[in-house]
């Protein structure tokens, strides 16, 4: 199973579309967290809303982290495919692939941390105030 997924990740080509996945997931998670919290706080009591908010943000965070981790994993496997030596700056398919893979991997790392930072307040605050 894991081997199959690894081979699938190797077959996928890093592209600009893959590059924008982590920051897009981060943006959507950010938007969901703020909008959902605002709506729940407005509709429920200040303290009662926190259970719903924590559940919603937990689900959204797990989904977002899985997507970012998956795109990061694909980028990581792509960055390890044999090819030219560094630096990857020539206009060849191999260099382009390595560059996009490295950029995607870094963006996935940043997005992963940012999603966690967005979610943490929901587990520290105990009301909407």
């Amino acid at each position, binding site marked *: 199973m894991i081997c199959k997924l690894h081979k699938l990740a190797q077959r996928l080509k890093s592209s600009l579309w893959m590059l924008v996945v982590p920051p897009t997931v981060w943006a959507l998670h950010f938007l969901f967290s703020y909008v959902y919290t605002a709506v729940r706080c407005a509709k429920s009591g200040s303290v009662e809303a926190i259970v719903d908010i924590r559940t919603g943000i937990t689900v959204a965070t797990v989904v977002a982290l899985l997507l970012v981790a998956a795109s990061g994993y694909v980028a990581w496997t792509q960055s390890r495919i044999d090819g030219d030596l560094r630096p990857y700056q020539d206009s060849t398919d191999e260099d382009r692939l390595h560059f996009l893979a490295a950029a995607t991997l870094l963006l996935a790392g940043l997005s992963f941390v940012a999603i966690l930072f967005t979610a943490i*307040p929901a587990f*520290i*605050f*105990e009301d909407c105030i």
Partner: protein
Amino acid sequence: MTDHNPDQFSVFKPISRSLLRLIFGPVLALLYGCTGIQSTFSAFGVEAESTRSLTWVMTAAATVITIGVLWLAWYAARTPASQLDYKGGMRVIFWFGALGPTLLLSVLLVFSLSKMRTLPTGTDDLKIAVTGEQFWWRARYLPVGGQSVETANEIRIPVGRTVAFALTSPDVIHSFWIPGLAGKVDMIPGRTNDLVVRATQAGVYRGVCAEFCGLSHAHMAFDVVAMEPAAFEQWLTNMAHPATGGDSPGRKLFESYGCSGCHTIRGHIEGATIGPDLTHFGSRLSVGAGTLPMTLDAISRFIRNPASVKPGVMMPDFREISDKDVAVISNYLVELR
């Protein structure tokens, strides 16, 4: 060959000293403002203590990070290019550029969020509804199972008890700020904002309006008295009582000049509630929302020409009032305790 006189640069010494004086003089003067009755650094409440510790921790962290970054830049600029191979360079970037900052920011984030948590509230907490009005404060105490009490321009709270403020405004946006007690909270027309506090130290402090609200925004302050719980209960009981004293010339003048068109003195004059409730006016610490001391002269001055003290104030002036009449009214007001 030119001989260098070791003292030739001594000219810089006086300049350096003057420069230091020039820098440290204002800094010391500003630091002096970090203490006293209106400062978060002189905290007397749980929330302000959190803000103060947050300030120190963040300042310390910012200092360490700044020095670290400057040192790294200096080190990188002076180190020969061959000092680190590719892997070594990537390792430095990974530890100092990615993992280190992430861990540090995570610690600071969790620490700061924990300091920003609101105090837990209960049903037996004291509730105080405060309304910011141009340019004074209406305070209504709502004790559990007790009678509500209205007063103005002074907030008294018991030490060690949780107090929940409900903040709003009927006119423009104000901001309720007692720096030594908690952070500021806006008072917005049509909306009620909550602020939960707990005083830790008895004393007399000062609060202000922290949102520009008109000509006398800077004169919209109030006294804050944190009292031991027993003393507070006694004070609140006293405040619930109507004003004492019977007929007095001052009371009659107060009515005849039309003061009751805006002010109420419970037990004496059931007037309008447009202006501050004056029932126990004489027991307050200041006149005109923290602008003048509680003296007969100050009261007289305010009655005659309130706009000279607070430009833009709603209260009309009484310049035509005689010295005798204004003195009688001032005496009457100062005896309302």
